[in-house]
Every structure is written in structure tokens, then in C-alpha cells.
């Protein structure tokens, strides 16, 4: 039983990354209708951002947690203004291809600069060691990741549910055309929302740097799982993607424990089931599919 609880906790930690990434992906998809294939690349840039600011100007992990997402937000907004925007009126496939190409370019640029080996990055001193969680002890850093991601998710949820900006984002996600016909300048919010989604990916990247291999491939491997998470949670459903993120994390961890060989397929089996039985996703609304 302890072992199972521990696996569930482990799953929640890896789910933290899924949740943050799926959240950004979902907000971007909702607002722009763009399936952002470059999301994994932004996550990778986040991790490299942490490494770079440490190596070049000695910026600590804590500061990187703020600075790197901000820089990525700017990058995201520039990309939205210069590239993504030009294709939004066309078939969504065009932006899918654009972001796919962007992902490859970003990945290759990083590889050109840093090579294929992973970059070293260590945990902040404050988070070395372990916490005793009663039933088991757990690495401090990972507990921090879980708590931090929950805090960020809740904060995003509060902003979305309790502010005018959040209301506009929700409305534009649900019915962009109608929202515009009601006098809301949807286009003005598209750029910052894209930047925000990218910043979330970058934040996940910074969080990953101390505990995962930092190399140009790290995002490409992850993005497919994140797509599955978003589909399972319900495309465009913010709450759904966060919940599905933690859920998939737990599923993979428990799967790893009992049937390691099958654990990766579990995600996609679940996705197939969801698509068959509840095409709008576990938390998606049927109406928003039309």
C-alpha cells in the first residue's frame, strides 16, 4: 500500500510537468485554434535558458524561474506577431506545419550551439535532500516541483475564472467569432495569450533542468504525450488539461511499477478509449466541439 501511495506521489510529480505544458497548449489552442507543435521546443528552451543564464551571468535557479519564462513570453509574442498570425485564417493544418517546422529549427539551433550531450545543471542548495512525508521520504526538489505546479495551476485558474481577462479568454476560446461580434477585440488578446502559453512551457523547462537531462531532444519526446494529455482532458478545456496532466502522470507511474513495458502505451490506450467513448475529452463540453 505504501508502495502504491509512493508511486501515486511519483506520478503527481511527473504529472506536474504534463499539467503545466498541457495548460499552455490548451490555452493557446483555445484562443488561437493553433495546435502548437513547438510547445515541446519551448519547454526545451526553458531548460536551456536556465542553464545559459547560470553559465553566462550567474543567475540562480530562483531568478531563472522568473526571468526565463518572461524572455520566452517575449519570444512567443514575436513569433505570434510575425509568423503564426499570418496563417490563423487558413486551415489549422498550416499552423500545425509551421509550428512543427519551428520546433525542428529551434531544436537544431540549440544542437548547433550546445551539441547533443546533455548540459549539467544542479539542484538549488535549498532543495537538496529529502522531506519525510510520514509514510515515505521524498526528494525535496520533487516535492517543490509538485507544490509549485499546483500553485501555478491554481493561480492561472483564478485569473481565468475571476478576472475580466479570464472572462475574455474563456469567451474567445469558446466562440471567437461571436466574441468579436460582441465588441471584444479578440485579436488584441491573442498575442499575449500565445506568449503566456509559451511562458508556461518555459517555466516547466526551468523546473525540469535540475532533475532531467537537458538536451535538444528533451521536448520532442514529451510533446506527443502532452498532445495525448490535452485530448484526454478535452481540447481547449483548461481545467481538463490540468486534471488530465496529473492523472496521466499517476497512470504512467503506477503502470511503470506494475507493467513497465506497457506503461508508455497506457497513455495512448486511454486516449483511444476517451476518443471512442467521450470524444470531447473527460472534461470537455460537447458543445465546444461543434
Amino acid at each position, binding site marked *: 500500500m505504501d508502495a502504491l501511495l509512493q508511486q501515486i506521489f511519483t506520478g503527481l510529480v511527473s504529472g506536474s510537468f504534463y499539467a503545466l505544458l498541457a495548460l499552455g497548449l490548451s490555452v493557446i489552442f483555445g484562443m488561437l485554434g493553433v495546435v502548437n507543435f513547438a510547445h515541446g521546443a519551448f519547454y526545451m528552451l526553458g531548460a536551456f535558458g536556465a542553464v545559459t543564464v547560470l553559465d553566462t551571468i550567474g543567475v540562480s535557479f530562483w531568478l531563472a524561474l522568473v526571468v526565463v519564462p518572461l524572455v520566452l513570453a517575449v519570444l512567443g509574442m514575436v513569433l505570434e506577431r510575425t509568423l503564426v498570425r499570418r496563417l490563423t485564417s487558413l486551415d489549422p493544418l498550416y499552423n500545425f506545419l509551421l509550428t512543427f517546422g519551428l520546433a525542428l529549427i529551434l531544436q537544431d539551433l540549440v544542437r548547433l550551439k550546445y551539441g547533443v550531450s546533455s548540459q549539467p545543471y544542479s539542484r538549488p542548495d535549498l532543495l537538496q535532500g529529502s522531506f519525510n512525508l510520514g509514510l515515505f521520504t521524498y526528494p525535496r526538489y520533487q516535492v517543490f516541483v509538485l507544490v509549485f505546479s499546483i500553485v501555478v495551476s491554481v493561480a492561472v485558474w483564478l485569473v481565468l475564472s475571476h478576472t475580466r481577462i479570464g*472572462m475574455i479568454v*474563456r*469567451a474567445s476560446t469558446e466562440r471567437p467569432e461571436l466574441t468579436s*461580434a460582441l465588441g471584444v477585440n479578440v485579436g488584441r488578446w491573442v498575442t499575449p495569450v500565445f506568449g503566456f502559453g509559451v511562458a508556461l512551457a518555459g517555466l516547466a523547462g526551468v523546473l525540469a533542468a535540475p532533475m532531467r537531462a537537458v538536451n535538444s531532444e528533451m521536448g520532442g519526446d514529451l510533446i506527443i504525450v502532452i498532445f495525448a494529455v490535452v485530448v484526454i482532458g478535452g481540447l481547449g478545456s483548461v481545467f481538463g488539461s490540468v486534471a488530465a496532466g496529473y492523472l496521466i502522470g499517476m497512470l504512467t507511474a503506477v503502470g511503470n511499477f506494475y507493467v513497465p513495458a506497457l506503461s508508455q502505451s497506457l497513455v495512448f490506450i486511454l486516449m483511444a478509449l476517451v476518443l471512442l467513448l467521450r470524444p470531447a475529452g473527460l472534461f470537455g463540453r460537447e458543445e465546444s466541439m461543434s
Partner: protein
Amino acid sequence: MLSVHGVSARYGEAQVLTDVTLDVQQGEIVTLVGRNGAGKTTLLRCLMGLHRSMSGRVELDGVDITRRSSHQRARLGLGYVPDDRGIYASLSVEENLLLPPVVDERAWSMDQVYEAFPVLADRRRQTGTHLSGGEQQMLSIARVLRTGARMLLADEPTEGLSPLLVQQIGDIFRSVREHGITVLLIEQNLHFASSLADRHHLIARGQVVESLDNSEVKEREHELLEYLGI
């Protein structure tokens, strides 16, 4: 107030509107009457700037708004009540009301809205789509009144409603007119239309086939009903 000159529109290969010309005067209630698929909804979408492949000219108070984006048109005073009522499932009733920005000083305050539509006040915290059809229709109309829109473009507000509710909607539009707000209404219910409107445009196969005063409609009601096949 609103004039439409030679508007044509396509859906892909299909020509949906051909050279539509009509006008609506300040303070009038005017209906667009016609069968399903005649092009009424497309015309309203053209006026709202939601249909891209169109030609012709749309003027609001003498200002050419043909090139304006739809949120700019809303800010110039066009209030859109879409055919599916356009209530957001992800917004509460109150948020549905607060979403569109106020565009004119004669905008209704929330108090006024709730006074006029007490049912919305009772359900302000509920999810918008949890309201009944009639309540959603009221919400959709109240939403644009709160912005201070000078002209409502309403797409079949009575569709699927019980006679009692249709009556209520009729009352709402009459009181809207009393506030000096102009209304362009899509309607298939000829009886309802003639009980309310000043003038009517008959639309068939994407063209205005006849424009009639309300009195003429009343006289020719049977003939027109047959023509419309309603």
C-alpha cells in the same frame, strides 16, 4: 440609419446573396422574412462583418463600415443576437452580460437589466447554458442592451419558443423600440412579424423579392404564407 447597397456573398462556390439592397430607418423595427436557406442569416452575418467573401457596401449613419472588423462594428452600436442565442457555456449568466464592452452612454445598467429581466437576476451565478431556451433568448437580448447598442440585429429570436414566450419576446422588442433602438429582425413567424414590425423585406434565393409595409403584409397574409411555404 443602416443602408445596404448591392451586397452579394458566397459560400465557397455557392452564391448565397445576390445584389441585396435595403435600408432601415432610425427607430424602426424591420424584418427579413423568408424560407430556411434563403440567405437571411448570411445577410445578417455580412452586416456584422462575420462573413468574409462579400461584395457591396454597408453604411451605418452614412459611414461606410464595409471594411470595418466585427468588433469595431459592435463598438459603433450594432448589437448582435445570433440565431443560436450565443450563450457561453463557460461563462455565468452575469459574465455573459458583462462580457461585451459598453459602447454608448445610454447603455443599460446591470440594475436596469435585472429589473427588466428578473429571471436573469435570480440566476446570475448559474452557467449561461443552464438557462431554458426562452431565458437564454432574453439573456442574449439583454446582453446587447447593456452595451448601449443603437441597433439590434436579431436572428430568429422566437425560434423554438412557446407562444407565451414569443409574446414576451414581442413585448421586449416593443419596449426596446420605445428606448429609441432600431431593430432588424429575421423572422419566419409572419404573424409575429406583422404584430411588431413597421416594414418587411421578403428574401428568396438570396435576393430581396419584395419590400412591404406592415399594412400590406396584413392584407396579403395568406398569399404570403403560401409563398413562404411556412
